[in-house]
């Protein structure tokens, strides 16, 4: 890599503060930093670390597939450590380049990479979604609940399948309507289409809808509030968007995992790290905004389900293990 040197000494170091050595770094997936969802949650975690420690970190926004490798190599070259990246799409590239930089620790969120210097953080989205399904089935008066996904990819089926299992476990007669916003990346950012899908589901009788659709979900929550039905948010706590009309949010602690990785610094532990209900990696958001919507029996049902999942009495099927869902 001697060829990198002119480039690095020529421009990069002149742009970056000298203290960059051993600073952590965060790379956002192509969606960009402010996607109101996944990347933004990672950004919040990094900012929290910055506010608490006064440290600095390097953040990168990539623009193309080929830049994944470019960004990782260049960060490793300037000794950023650890390097945290959001999104399963980095998996293939990281697996290839991690052995080239044994001194650097990498943290990848949402997929597993089996290398000695990589920490893989995955979330048990199906468990949080299961609880959301339990709540939805209890809150529904019509016996029909809806699910609106973003882009039709396996990760979102994992949400959908967990949700459906929670609904069916609570009310075997309940019907789950399922719609996806689209087949291209634009589906993550189409609030208007999200709203249309909500109206379509309402016309079929749905009175609770769960959105796992990135920024499209904002439109789902808006329309549900306007039409007077309940909605369920995702990734971040979205209860405050429409107080009293968002039943709950399935929170994925992406911010927490970035924060912990930054805090551990070069000592970050390689290996698999599962963020599930038991570890608090996924949870339902309960706050003053949805307090009036949650009855005592709902709280009891969620607590019972939580304990059963944590103890292993209930096994929530993970769609991504075999690409099938037992309840559909």
């Amino acid at each position, binding site marked *: 890599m001697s060829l990198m040197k002119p*480039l690095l000494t020529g*421009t990069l170091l002149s742009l970056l503060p000298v203290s960059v050595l051993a600073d952590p770094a965060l790379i956002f997936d192509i969606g960009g930093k402010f996607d109101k969802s996944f990347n933004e949650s990672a950004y919040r975690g990094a900012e929290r670390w910055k506010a608490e420690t006064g440290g600095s970190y390097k953040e990168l*926004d990539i*623009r193309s*597939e080929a830049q994944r490798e470019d960004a990782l190599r260049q960060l490793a070259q300037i000794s950023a450590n650890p390097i945290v990246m959001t999104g399963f799409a980095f998996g293939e590239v990281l697996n290839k380049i991690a052995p080239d930089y044994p001194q650097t620790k990498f943290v990848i969120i949402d997929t597993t990479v089996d290398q000695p210097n990589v920490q893989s953080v995955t979330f048990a989205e199906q468990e949080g979604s299961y609880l959301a399904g339990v709540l939805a089935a209890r809150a529904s008066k019509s016996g029909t609940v809806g699910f609106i996904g973003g882009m039709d990819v396996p990760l979102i089926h994992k949400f959908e399948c967990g949700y459906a299992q929670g609904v069916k476990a609570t009310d075997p007669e309940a019907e789950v309507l399922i719609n996806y916003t689209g087949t291209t990346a634009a589906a993550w950012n189409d609030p208007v289409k999200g709203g249309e899908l909500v109206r379509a589901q309402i016309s079929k009788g749905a009175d609770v809808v769960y959105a796992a659709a990135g920024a499209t979900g904002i439109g789902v929550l808006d329309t549900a509030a306007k039409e007077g039905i309940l909605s369920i948010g995702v990734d971040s706590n979205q209860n405050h968007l429409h107080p009293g009309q968002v039943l709950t949010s399935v929170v994925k602690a992406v911010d927490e995992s970035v924060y912990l990785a930054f805090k551990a610094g070069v000592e970050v532990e390689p290996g698999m790290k599962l963020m599930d209900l038991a570890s608090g990696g996924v949870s339902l958001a309960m706050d003053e905004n949805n307090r009036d919507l949650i009855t005592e029996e709902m709280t009891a049902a969620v607590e019972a389900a939580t304990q059963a999942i944590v103890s292993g009495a209930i096994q929530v099927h993970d769609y991504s293990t075999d*690409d099938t869902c037992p309840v559909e």
Partner: protein
Amino acid sequence: MERMPKWADLILTPLISLLLAFGLSALVILAIGESPAEALKVMVTGSLGSSYGWGYTLYYTTNFIFTGLAVAIAYHAGLFNIGGEGQAAMGGLGVTLVILALPWPHWTLALPAAMAGAALFGALWALIPAWLQARRGSHIVITTIMFNFIAAAILNYLLVNVMRPVGSMDPASASFPAATHLPRLSDLALAFGITWGKNTPANITFLIALAACFAVWLLIWRSRIGYEIRAFGRSEPAALYAGISPSRIIVATMLISGALAGLMAINNVMGGGERLILNAPEGAGFIGIAVALMGRNHPLGVILAALLFGFLYQGGGQLALWTSIPRELIVVIQALVILLTGALDNMVRMPLERAFAALSRNRG
């Protein structure tokens, strides 16, 4: 109006347009409180300042040469092929099917077959719009745009439901076996004892792209069908009078155009990613339109324009990585270049023509 010397037409005009575009971009960068000089430095050193940067620049250039040629050849027949994006995506599907279907022992065997697959799928994807244009008069601009979306939806379906290895979260095909990996340009350089562009995705497809440029030049200016394409593009009634069948020319041209766009997949799917991912062309099909416009639909011009856009793409990427200039601004810079070199071409050309006319009058 008198004509300018050829060098002024082909080099001076785009150069002045380019300088204007950079000047305007500098003002925009100043307006958001960043230093244009620093930005330019990052762009140039990041893309042309080292063999590492060149490795990426040439990788993007290769993509743009193929899509640029695809648009250029269609343009000679008076057809505006906006479907390069979808044709390149389908080309990627062709490459992937060919490579994953058989246990190829060596890349030299896999490459011709993959090229055939890429060209075939790209060409077939252009065939339906071409046929609709030739037989039903459905405008090719509209149909090719719509086919981009259909291609995206088909690929999404196949990658999510059919080609994705079980247990993988990533909507992508399985990785290609190591035997089918194309040699990188850095490997070639190493064979000659030169350390160049290590760890960059530029691969031998770049040489294939240059060969394709020569082939397209031969086709357009030195072949019978090329003559027919140009004649048809200039005037359909004249071509008809000369016994050239319009529907045959439309279909043939679009097949060649689609095949060229499809061949881009050799670079980004087989050479770069070594597996098929969603949205693999990443807009190269659309950049090809700008490349063809700026290159005046001549293969040599396409190479130069592709190199410029390769530089903008890689340099812009470095800006996004290493400065706080937001990435949206890089799109603004690229748009200004397209606007001034493509759409507002006459703004520079007409004053220049007048200046040259005045000059030659003065001389006598």
